[in-house]
């Protein structure tokens, strides 16, 4: 390769020089022959040869132009199309063109590999992805999206879901119910392509399976506890009713015994009724009446109600209002107070009979959230206990209703908030009631 450009360069220049000298010689020869000797026929032949050599010179020079044109075409063309290498006579030019085309080819292949990589990645993702232009046209879909909707694009989801999906603003997250009943989590985000303007990326993710499993598990737990609770109450009721019947059939019924049996039947029946009422408290929580609630006022009220109760049981009580927790929050004051008091009552029961028992309330937060933490230095919760702790009617306390914590959580959810558990720095349990500052929704 090394000697070729040099040889090539010499070849083209030499060719041009030889042809030029040849044309000059031929033209001079033709004139000389014609003028000196009057051999016009010979002069005509010589002039004809000179023209042919001239034409060859033009052809040879124009091949440089052709190579350049092919080079440009090679740049424009997709793929590996390029002019043939080693154009005779154009050593440096054709070598430079070869180098340029090599480099372009390599970077083009590299770019293609990256595109293939990203395409494969997008097709491997289980979520369905759509890129939508501002006029609502689907510009690109990944494999999962193709499988979900076929060739119809977003319209393949059914008119209602498609309409809602198109209406989603960038940054939204929403559960969509498709026409076939499956629930999908839709999330959208906006991005801009240089030179092509704004685009929207829509992701659809199948969540139904997980959600259904969680929901089903919650229902099973609840059904088990409800039936256990009811059967336990019905056991003495059924048996004592039968026994009373038997007693009444005797010649001299023992009325005192029957009276006692009836007393239990009445008491347990009422117990069942209040159990169902409690169930309704959790199931039909009234919608919260939002108003600005000052955390300071909440803490003071709770201090009055629970501080005294804790101290009367020999339990240390402390409450703290951090600067981050001072700003007002939109909440239902009564429900919020109830949620906090439920948590504190649980904490109080947890530290019962422990030496140096302590519990407390901390209000903290930031611009977006109010965090009310209720902590104690009791035994804390094991992972299994934690899992059961939020199941309505689950209780470890004799006579406990088992709705305290689940009611608090219902209240948190009704405010678009949540309850989280963590191990308390004090050694026991800590439940955090986290409310968004703007509870609207």
């Amino acid at each position, binding site marked *: 390769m090394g000697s070729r450009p040099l040889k090539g360069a010499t070849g083209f220049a030499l060719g041009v020089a030889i042809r030029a000298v040849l044309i000059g010689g031929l033209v001079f020869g033709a004139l000389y022959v014609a003028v000196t000797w009057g051999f016009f026929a010979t002069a005509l032949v010589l002039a004809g040869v000179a023209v042919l050599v001239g034409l060859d010179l033009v052809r040879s020079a124009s091949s440089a132009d052709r190579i350049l044109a092919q080079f440009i075409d090679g740049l424009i063309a997709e793929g590996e199309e390029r002019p043939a290498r080693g154009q005779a006579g154009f050593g440096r030019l054709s070598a430079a063109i070869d180098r340029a085309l090599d480099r372009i080819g390599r970077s083009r292949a590299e770019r293609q590999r990256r595109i293939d990589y990203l395409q494969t990645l997008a097709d491997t993702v289980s979520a369905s992805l759509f890129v939508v232009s501002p006029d609502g046209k689907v510009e690109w879909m990944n494999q999962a999206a193709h499988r979900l909707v076929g060739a119809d694009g977003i319209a393949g989801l059914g008119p209602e879901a498609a309409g809602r999906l198109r209406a989603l603003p960038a940054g939204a997250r929403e559960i969509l119910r498709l026409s076939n009943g499956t629930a999908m989590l839709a999330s959208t985000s906006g991005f801009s392509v240089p030179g092509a303007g704004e685009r929207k990326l829509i992701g659809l993710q199948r969540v139904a399976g997980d959600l259904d499993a969680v929901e089903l598990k919650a229902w099973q737990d609840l059904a088990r506890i409800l*039936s256990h609770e009811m*059967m*336990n109450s019905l056991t*003495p009721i*059924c*048996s004592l009713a039968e*026994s009373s019947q*038997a007693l009444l059939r005797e010649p001299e019924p023992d009325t005192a015994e029957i009276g006692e049996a009836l007393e*239990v039947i009445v008491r347990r029946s009422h117990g069942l009724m209040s159990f169902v009422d409690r169930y309704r408290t959790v199931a039909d929580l009234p919608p919260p009446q939002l108003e600005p609630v000052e955390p300071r006022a909440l803490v003071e009220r709770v201090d009055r109600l629970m501080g005294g109760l804790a101290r009367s049981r020999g339990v240390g009580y402390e409450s703290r209002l951090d600067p981050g927790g001072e700003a007002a929050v939109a909440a239902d004051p009564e429900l919020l107070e109830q949620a906090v008091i439920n948590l504190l009552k649980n904490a109080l029961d947890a530290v019962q009979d422990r030496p140096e028992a302590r519990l407390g309330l901390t209000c903290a937060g930031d611009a977006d959230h109010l965090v009310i933490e209720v902590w104690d230095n009791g035994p804390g919760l094991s992972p299994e206990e934690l899992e059961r702790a939020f199941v309505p009617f*689950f209780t470890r306390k004799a006579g406990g209703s088992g709705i305290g914590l689940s009611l608090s959580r219902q209240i948190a959810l009704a405010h678009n908030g949540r309850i989280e558990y963590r191990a308390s720095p004090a050694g026991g349990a800590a439940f955090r009631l986290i409310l968004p500052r703007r509870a609207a929704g």
Partner: protein
Amino acid sequence: MTAAAILVLDDDKDVLKAARLALGKQSALIEACESPQDLEARLAEREYDVVLLDMNFAPGERSGAEGLDALALIRQTHPHLSVILMTTFGGVSLAVEGLKRGAADFVLKPWRNDALTAAVAKAAELTRTRRATQEELNLDELERRAIARALAIHGGNVSKAAAALGLTRPALYRRMAQYGL
């Protein structure tokens, strides 16, 4: 049918009362035990014929682990004592596990009084059979030891040993053959 002594383990006082009334005629005595911790002491106090055991007798306890633990304790310390498990409807698989581990029977809560009394009568009978078999075994063992001792004292002289034991020689020979002495 002789009256049985029954121990009921349940943390619900009303259930204890209901069992007492339902089993009144059948039982010589019904005692209640509300806490698994008291179980061992209660069993040591007197001889019971039947134990009625709630599978979940601690507040909030629904795994049945408490019931199975109590069952294991009874089987270990009083192997002849019949145990009837009480469980709510959801606990049938648990009851089956209990049967595998040596419970005599199980009743579903809420129970029908007839079913409960029948189960208790059968379980009490089972306890008595087991005890009688044990006593027979015990008598045989006592006799074998007495003969062995008598033979040792009299240096293997069968006539003297028979005289000391108040048996005829052929009778002693028969028993020696029976016990392999």
